[in-house]
């Protein structure tokens, strides 16, 4: 009797998984421990491990399709064995490139059917010419091959880029690595400007260049983007956010950082401002532990450790890897862990235990030049810290106006858990350690 392998729960919040690609094909001999397929959850792309020895007899879910938890993926058994179709062989249908506009337009135009059963029948009976489904990939003629270099193909697969939106700049319109990298950096593809003619120059005041700013299109929401949307909406609409802001004198921090980095240059260690913020937050949580908490409906949970997470932007969303027990780690440990987690996040290789279980979150847009902002709480955390850029500006020191460096920190807090005074104490504690940053080294 063949073993049916079902879509496993690969993260706490997962309800469906996207089967990215099969690593084995029907007929392959597989061993326990082999990786059968890559599955994209709401957070990461993970490998689907086989727990049986045998032959991969039958694949039920196509690459690219979304499969509900527990739905059958494939069958592994003895070679030649016939596979009984599993009871529910209906994985959620693929949602690759839905012709959304056409679909919704049709829905509006069609009279509402009396009952869903009737609708189906009615549609089946209609002459096919009227109801032919809209073509799925409007960017290229049907059946036209996408010209793409092997490397670009691999990168596009890795980054999850929809090739129908990418214009190739290589010979004959071939999509090459640079096109994929540009598309990944800038979801509104600048690629269309690259086809043949040189990019529009700004000389001679050709400001009013004609043409669309990008190819109009709809893109199916990735699993990750969908989860982010749902959770942030839930957070912003159900959690009573309030905001506190404090300005920190960043000079001592910048000076210490420069001094440490100079001394550590040979060791290849480079501390970022964010590393100090992560460590500083953990220290501030130690001093004002009431912020390190979560609202659980009828109770409030106060955490015993500062598991500080930080937001990492990815091409199709963001993720918050967690530096566990940051209060117990040296700033060097925090820095090196944050670096390796950040890299794993960018490669979409984070494991669930590396991005779940944070008790406090840091979101830093300083490197993008944003002076301050109000981040949305990442539930179940009770607070999130928004970190702005370091600004050089006139400040008053000892009654004199001098040039100084400042950093603005904004705390978004859940008022059910954290009151104004507690949040203010936390920011004051954080300001104190960041303005005497040597404290973070002891």
């Amino acid at each position, binding site marked *: 009797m063949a073993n049916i392998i079902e879509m496993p729960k690969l993260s706490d919040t997962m309800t469906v998984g996207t089967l990215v690609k099969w690593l084995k094909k029907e007929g392959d001999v597989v061993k326990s421990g082999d990786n059968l397929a890559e599955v994209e959850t709401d957070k990461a792309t993970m490998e689907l491990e086989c727990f049986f020895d045998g032959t991969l007899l039958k694949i039920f879910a196509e690459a690219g399709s979304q499969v509900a938890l527990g739905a059958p993926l494939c069958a592994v058994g003895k070679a030649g064995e016939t596979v009984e179709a599993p009871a529910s062989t209906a994985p959620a249908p693929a949602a690759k490139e839905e012709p959304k506009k056409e679909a919704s337009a049709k829905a509006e135009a069609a009279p509402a059917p009396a009952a869903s059963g009737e609708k189906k029948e009615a549609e089946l009976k209609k002459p096919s010419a009227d109801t032919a489904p809209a073509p799925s990939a409007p960017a290229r003629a049907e059946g036209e091959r996408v010209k793409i*270099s092997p*490397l670009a193909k*691999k990168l596009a697969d890795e980054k999850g880029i929809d090739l129908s939106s990418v214009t190739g700049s290589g010979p004959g319109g071939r999509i090459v690595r640079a096109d994929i990298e540009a598309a990944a950096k800038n979801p509104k593809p600048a690629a269309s400007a690259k086809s043949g003619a040189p990019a529009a120059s700004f000389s001679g005041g050709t400001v009013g260049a004609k043409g669309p700013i990008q190819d109009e299109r709809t893109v199916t929401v990735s699993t990750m983007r969908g989860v982010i949307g749902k959770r942030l909406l839930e957070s912003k609409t159900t959690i009573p956010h309030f905001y506190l802001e404090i300005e920190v004198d960043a000079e001592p921090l910048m000076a210490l950082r420069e001094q440490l980095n100079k001394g550590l240059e040979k060791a290849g260690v480079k501390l970022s401002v964010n590393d100090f913020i992560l460590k500083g937050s953990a220290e501030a949580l130690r001093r004002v532990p009431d912020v390190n908490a979560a609202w659980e409906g009828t109770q409030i949970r106060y955490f015993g450790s500062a598991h500080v997470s930080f937001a990492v932007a990815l091409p199709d969303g963001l993720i918050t890897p967690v530096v566990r027990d940051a209060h117990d780690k040296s700033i060097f440990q925090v820095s090196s862990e944050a670096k390796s987690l950040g890299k794993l996040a960018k490669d979409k290789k984070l494991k669930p235990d590396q991005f779940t279980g944070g008790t406090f979150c840091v979101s830093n847009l300083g490197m993008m030049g944003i002076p301050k902002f109000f981040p949305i709480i990442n539930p179940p955390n009770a607070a999130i810290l928004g970190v702005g850029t370091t600004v050089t500006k006139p400040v008053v020191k000892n009654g004199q106006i001098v040039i100084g460096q400042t950093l603005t920190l904004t705390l978004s807090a859940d008022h059910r858990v954290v009151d104004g005074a507690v949040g203010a104490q936390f920011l004051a504690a954080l300001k104190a350690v960041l303005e005497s940053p040597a404290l973070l080294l002891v």
Partner: protein
Amino acid sequence: MAVISYREAIRAALAEELTRDENVVLMGEEVANFHGAYKVSEGLLEKFGPDRIVDTPISEAGFIGMGVGASMLGVRPVMELMFWSFYSVAFDQILNNAANVRYMSGGLINCPIVIRGPANGGTNVGATHSHTPENVLANHPGVKVIVPATAADAKGLLKSAIRDNDPCFFLENTILYGEKGEVSDDPELLIPLGVADVKRQGTDLTIVTYGRCVLHSLVAADILEKEHDVSVEVIDLRTIRPLDIDTVLASVKKTHRVLIVEEQKPFASVGSQLAYMIQREAFDELDGPIHRLATIDAPAIYSPPVEVEQLPNPQRVLKAALAAVE
């Protein structure tokens, strides 16, 4: 370290190995009294005597056959062909006998012969004197094919070839004999066979090449860097067989674009084999098709200005490289 010519480097390798091992002998047309057609063996007769530096009649089938037989009996002969183009006269001796004997004898008989001499075109000596036989030679399992590009490589590789127990075919480029370079005088400095050399580091394009085309490629790479902002890695294969595909693949994984440059006719050449191996092992790393520059597909032309147009040169490498990074 001394700056010496490619010719002098080969002579130094011969002298050092003749000194080290009394079983090493040098044989060929005019190698003794006339010092070789390209004066590689100058002074060796005086130093090692007529028993070890031996002039042979003009009969490649005869004297290469003699060398193959001697090598089977424990002599380590270095055979000079006045032109590698004459290898076809001794085809049976080289490929049927030398290349096959270890296999045919079940491993009982080795054939530690080195056959060396000038190869390639560019010296206006016509179609019968300008062959590039490395692909034909390398087609035979059991042999080693070596094509040095610099004086230092010529010396280190020839010494390794003389000490090797397989038939080694050592192809010297006639035009390179006068090229100078820094060469170690350490008599134990060997360059292993089957190890390619990254002659220049780069990030945008890998040029895989060997022999004189290494020099063309380095010149082109400098221009590409300065004038076109294209960073080129130049891999000198040094030996065609064994072929160091790992070094090539590591470079392709870095640059994702490949140009193969060879002074061969393009059909079924070393470059053809390389292109196959690269696409097989690094298909997903390629961001464009593998490009190749070879000699124009015609017998070598006698007319000097026309022969120049037939062969690869830096300008042509430059043009091919720009096409490869398009």
